[in-house]
C-alpha cells in the first residue's frame, strides 16, 4: 500500500502528470485497502445510495477472485497464444498504423540518416510494412477523390489579378471562372468564402465595406471566414481604427485575440489588450511567456520583471511568491549539488537526490527541505521554518508535509516533537491541526512500529474510528483500554480470544476483568 516502497525520496519531475500520481512519492494519498466497517456503514446508512464497496474481504472481490481463478484454470485448455492476433479485440496489433509509426520511429532512431536504407536487409520497401493482406476490405472504398468543395487560397483571395492558380491539381469547373471578375457584394463575398470559393477582398477599400464584410461573416457564424476577414482588415487598417471597431464587435474581437495567441504575435496582442484596458490579461499574457524559458536563471530574471505587471492584488502576491520560490530553489540547488558531490553529508550519501528541486511546487520544496534540511536554523534559506514563514504556509499544510518527510526517514522522534505542545505550566500535550487518524494513516504507510503507531491511534477522538484503527494495526493496548473505558465487558472478553495466549495483553485483560471497581455496563 505504500506508493513508493524504496527508501529514497523521489521527486518526480513532472507535476502535471496525468492520473492519480502524487507529486511527492511518499504514500500520502493511498487509502487503506481495508476500509473501516464503521465508516462505511455510517456513510451508507446516512445516504440512500447503495454502497458498492472496495473492501478486501468483501464478498464481491472474493467472488471476482474466484471467477478469475476459474477463468485462469481454463487457460491450459484454451491457451494458444499464436492465434491471438486474429481476434479483432486485440486491436489489430501488427497491421495498425500506430504500431507502424512506432516501428518507423525506432528504426530511424537506430539508423543514422543515409545509412538507413542499407540496414533494411534487402527489402526494398520499409520493413515496417508487413506484406500481409488487409483483413477487411476498406480498400474498396478507396477511389480517387473528386474535387468538391476545396476552397481557394487566401492569397488568391487577396490578390486582385483575377484568375491565378498555384495548385494545378485544384481543377475548377469552367463556369466558376467568370466569378472572379464579378463584383460581389460583401454579403455574396462572405457566402462564397463560406463555400470555400475564391473572392477578391482587395476591392473592399472603404471602411464601411470592410466592416460590412466582417459583420456579415459574424452574422453567418463562420469562424473561419471571420478570421480570414480579420487578417485582411489587419493588413489594410491602422491598428487604432481596427481596435476601435473591434471593441464594439465582441465576437470578431475574440477571434482576433485567439488568432494572435495562436500565431504568437505577442506584441500586437498586448497592444490590443492594452487598448481594451484589459490590464489583468496583459499581465497574465506576459507572465505566460515564462513557460517557454527553460534556463532557471533566465526564468528567474524574467519572473522578476513580471512582478511589476498590473496583476490583481491577489495574483500579484502569487507572482511574487513564484519569483521568490525560484530564487530560493536556485540557491538550494547550487548548495545541495555541491554538498552531494562532496560526499561529506550523510543524508545525501544515504538518500541521493533523484531530481533537481528547480521549478518544483512550494509543497514539494517544503518536503525536500524537511527531508534534507530539517534541523537547520531558521536563518538559512533551506530551512523548513524559513520556508514556512516566507510563504506563510498554513500550519496544517506544514505539519502534513513535515510529518510525511520525517516518517519517510523513520525519524519518530521528530514526529513526536511535531505534535507535542507545552502549556504555560509546562505540561505537555499532543495536538495536531489535522485529524489524528490522518497522522496514523501516514505513519502506517511509512511502516511505523506498533509502539509509535499506538500512541497516535490512542489520540483519535472518535471512539469507533479509534477502535477500528487499533484493531487494524494490532494496537492491543489501545483496544483494551478503550473497551475498559466503555465498560464493555463482553467486547473485552471477546477480544481476549484474539490476543496471544500467555501474552502481556492477555494478562492485562484478565486483570481488568477481575477489577471489582469497574461498573460494567454488561
Amino acid at each position, binding site marked *: *500500500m505504500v506508493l513508493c516502497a524504496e527508501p529514497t525520496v523521489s521527486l518526480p519531475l513532472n*507535476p*502535471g502528470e*496525468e492520473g*492519480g500520481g502524487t*507529486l511527492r512519492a511518499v504514500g*500520502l494519498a*493511498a*487509502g487503506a485497502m481495508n476500509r473501516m466497517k464503521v465508516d*462505511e456503514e455510517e*456513510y451508507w446508512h446516512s445516504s*440512500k445510495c447503495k454502497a458498492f464497496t*472496495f473492501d478486501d474481504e468483501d464478498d464481491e472481490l472474493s467472488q471476482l477472485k474466484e*471467477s*478469475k481463478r*476459474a477463468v*485462469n484454470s*481454463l487457460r491450459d485448455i*484454451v491457451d494458444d497464444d499464436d492465434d491471438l492476433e486474429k481476434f*479483432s*479485440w*486485440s486491436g*489489430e496489433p501488427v*497491421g*495498425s*498504423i*500506430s504500431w*507502424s509509426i512506432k516501428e518507423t*520511429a525506432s528504426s*530511424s532512431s537506430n539508423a543514422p*540518416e543515409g545509412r538507413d536504407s542499407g540496414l533494411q536487409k534487402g527489402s526494398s520497401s*520499409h520493413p515496417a*510494412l*508487413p506484406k500481409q493482406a*488487409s483483413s477487411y476490405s*476498406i480498400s474498396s*472504398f478507396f*477511389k480517387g477523390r473528386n474535387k468538391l468543395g*476545396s476552397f481557394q*487560397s*487566401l492569397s488568391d483571395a487577396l490578390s486582385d489579378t483575377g484568375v491565378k492558380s498555384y495548385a494545378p*491539381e485544384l481543377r475548377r469547373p469552367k463556369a466558376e471562372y467568370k466569378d472572379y471578375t464579378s463584383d460581389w457584394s460583401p454579403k455574396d463575398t462572405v457566402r462564397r468564402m463560406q463555400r*470555400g470559393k475564391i473572392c477578391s477582398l482587395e476591392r473592399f477599400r472603404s471602411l464601411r465595406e470592410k466592416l460590412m464584410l466582417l459583420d456579415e461573416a459574424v452574422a453567418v*457564424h463562420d*469562424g*473561419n471566414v471571420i*478570421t*480570414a476577414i480579420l487578417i485582411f482588415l489587419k493588413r489594410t487598417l491602422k491598428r487604432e481604427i481596427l481596435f476601435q471597431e473591434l471593441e464594439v464587435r465582441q465576437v470578431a474581437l*475574440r477571434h482576433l*485575440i485567439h488568432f494572435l495567441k495562436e500565431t504568437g504575435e505577442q506584441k500586437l496582442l498586448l497592444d490590443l489588450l492594452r487598448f481594451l484596458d484589459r490590464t489583468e490579461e496583459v499581465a*497574465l499574457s506576459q*507572465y*505566460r511567456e515564462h*513557460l517557454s524559458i527553460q534556463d532557471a536563471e533566465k526564468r528567474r530574471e524574467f519572473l522578476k520583471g513580471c512582478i511589476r505587471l498590473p496583476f490583481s492584488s491577489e495574483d500579484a502576491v502569487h*507572482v511574487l511568491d*513564484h519569483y521568490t520560490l525560484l530564487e530560493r530553489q536556485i540557491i538550494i540547488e547550487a548548495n545541495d549539488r555541491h554538498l552531494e558531490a562532496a560526499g561529506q553529508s550523510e543524508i545525501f550519501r544515504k538518500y541521493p537526490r533523484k531530481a533537481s528541486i528547480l521549478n518544483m511546487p512550494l*509543497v514539494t520544496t517544503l518536503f525536500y527541505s524537511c527531508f534534507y534540511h530539517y534541523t537547520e536554523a531558521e536563518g538559512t534559506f533551506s530551512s523548513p521554518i524559513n520556508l514556512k514563514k516566507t510563504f506563510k*504556509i498554513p500550519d496544517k*499544510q506544514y505539519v502534513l508535509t513535515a510529518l510525511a518527510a520525517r516518517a519517510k526517514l523513520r525519524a519518530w522522534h521528530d514526529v513526536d516533537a511535531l505534535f507535542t505542545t507545552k502549556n504555560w505550566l509546562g505540561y505537555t500535550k499532543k495536538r495536531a491541526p*489535522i485529524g489524528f487518524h490522518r497522522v496514523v494513516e501516514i505513519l502506517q504507510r511509512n511502516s511505523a512500529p506498533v509502539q509509535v503507531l499506538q500512541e497516535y491511534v490512542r489520540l483519535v477522538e472518535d471512539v469507533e474510528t479509534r477502535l477500528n484503527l487499533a484493531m487494524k494495526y494490532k494496537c492491543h493496548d489501545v483496544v483494551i483500554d478503550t473497551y475498559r473505558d466503555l465498560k464493555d465487558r463482553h467486547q473485552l472478553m471477546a477480544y481476549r480470544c484474539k490476543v496471544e495466549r500467555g501474552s502481556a495483553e492477555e494478562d492485562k485483560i484478565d486483570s481488568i476483568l477481575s477489577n471489582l471497581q469497574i461498573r460494567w455496563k454488561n
Partner: protein
Amino acid sequence: MPLGQPVPGWAFRVRERYPGTYGALFVPPQLPGKKDLFIEADLMSPLDRIANVSILKQHEVDKLYKVENKPIVSTSDQLCFLVRPRIKNMKYVADIVNADKAMGRSRKYKIIFSPQKFYSCELVLEEEGIYGDVTCDEWAFYLLPLDDDLLSMELPEFFRDYFLEGDQRWISTIARALQLLNSLFGPFANTYGIGRCAKMVYEVWRELVEESEGDSHARRPEISHVFLMDRDVDYVTALCSQVVYEGLVDDTFRIKCGSVDFGPDVTSSDRSFKVLLNAQDKVFSEIRNEHFSNVFGFLSQKARNLQTQYDRRRGMDIKQMKNFVSQELKGLKQEHRLLSLHIGACESIMKKKTKQDFQELLKTEHSLLEGFDIRESTSYIEEHIDRQVSPSESLRLMCLLSVTENGLIPKDYRSLKTQYLQSYGPEHLLTFHNLKRIGLLTEQAPGETLTAVESKVSKLVTDRAAGKLTDAFNSLARKSNFRGISKKLGLIPRVDGEYNLKVPRDMAYVFSGAYIPLSCKIIEQVLERKGWLGLEEVVRLLNGNEFAPTEPVMEENPAWEAQRVILAVFLGGCTFSEISALRFLGKEKGYKFIFLTTAITSSARLMDAMLEAKV
C-alpha cells in the same frame, strides 16, 4: 440483462451509405509515386479505426512518421502531411520545407487537412514563404463511427476553441457533419436544442439544407428527432466521477477512439493489449452500462457458465467433439479472453480506487450535488490539495463546488487557490484564469450572496417578479443556477430506503442513484413535452437559447412513433455516463438514441483542456 439494446449497426451504416467519407484518399493521385507520410498524433487513432498499413501501402506510402517536434530523417522525394488545420502544424511543415531549401534539396510536399482547411493556415504558409511549394488538399473526414450508436467527430479541441476562446471556426464543420447525416438518413423531422453554439450550428445547418433542397428525395426520415446541446448547459454531469462500467474504464484507463490499452496489471502478463470496446465485444456490451457494483456478479456468473460449457466436452463422442471444436470452441475461447481481460480491468480499477479513498470522494460529490455539508466538502477538497493528490482531481472537485454553488465565496476561493498553487505549482495561475473565463471556477461577487437575496425576495414577491430580479443578477455574475434547476427538474431523486442499482428506476443509477444527469433530463423532458412548453423557468435558469421546430411533425403512424430514433448531438463532448443514461431512457421509453459528439469527454479531459501548454 443489458441496458439499451443498440440499434444494430446504426453508426456503421453511415460508412455503408457514404463510403466516400472514409475511402476518400489520404494520398491522392496527384502525388503519385513513393512517398513518406507524416501523420499528426491526434489523427493516428481515428485513422487506425478505418484503415491499416497495407491500405496505405497500396497508395505507395513508404514510411510513416508522427508529426512531432523533432528534425525529420526522411530520405523520400515526396512528403505528405496528414494534419488537423492548426497553426503549429503549418510552422512544422514550413520548418521542414525551409530547411530543405537551405540545403538546396528539392522535394514535393503535400498537406492534407482533415476535416478541412482554414484560411489562417494558408496565411501561415504564405508568410513562411512556402506557399506554392506545398500543395494542399482536404480529407473530409467528419464522422468516425465509434460504435453501433456512437459517432464522434474526434475534435476534442472544439471544447477549448469555442467555450474558452470564443472561436467559431468549427461551427460550420459541425453543421456539415449534421448535413451529411441529414442527407443519409434524413430529412430530420424535429430539431430541438439549447445553447448558443447549438443555435448557431442549427442556423448554419438550415442554410445548408435549403441550399441542397433540390437533391433531397422525398423519403421517409429515419431519424425522427434531433437534439443539440452545448456542453456548458451542463458542466455538473461532466464533472462527476463516473461509476458505470464504461465510464469508470474511461476515467481509469482513458478510452481513446473506442479502444483502450490494458497494461500488464490488467492482462496479468508482461504485455499490454489494445482492446476495442464496443457492441461487438460480447462481454463488454453486457456490462458497459451497468453500475460498477453489478459488474462483479455478472462476471462471475459468466465465468461459471463458461466453465460449464467447457465441461460439456467431457463425455462427448467423436462426432460431438468434432462439432464442438468446429462450432463452439472458437467462440468460447474468445469469450474466455474477453472475460479474463474485463476481470483484470475490474481488479485494477478496484485497487486504484481503494487507494484514493473512492468512497469518501463519492460522498463528497454527492453532498455537493445535494447541497448540504458544504463546509465539510470544502475542507475535504482542501485536504485533497494539501496532500498533493492528483492535480486534475483536485481541480475538478473545486469546479464541482463552484458550479453547484454558483461560485465560491471569496474567502474560500482565495484560500483554495493559494493552496492549489502551493501544492501543484504557481504557473497554475493561468489555469485559474482560464477556469474563471469559462465559468467553471468562479468567485461570488463580494458583499452579496446572490442566493440568499434571491430566496428572500422570492418569498416576498411573486415568482415572476423574482425571475426578473434574478435576470438582473445574471448580468452581473454568470451563474450556473444549479440548485434552482435541480429543484425544478427533480434531479436529486427522493428514495425511501435503498436505491436498487440492479433494477434502476431512473437515469440516476449512473451516479449511484444520487443524481439524474441534467443534460439527459433536459432531453427527456423536451421529448416528452414535444417542446419547451412548461419548462420556461428551467430555460431561464439555463440562460436561454433554446429552440424547437415551429410546428412539430407529429407522426401519424403510431407504430413508427414507438420506434422513434433520436439523434443526440453534444457540442463540446459527452461522457460515457450520459450515453449510458440515455440508453437506459431509450429502453424505458422505446426510443432509439444515437449519439453525435465532437469528442468523448470526461472530467479529466475538461480539466486538461484548461491547462496552458508549455510552448
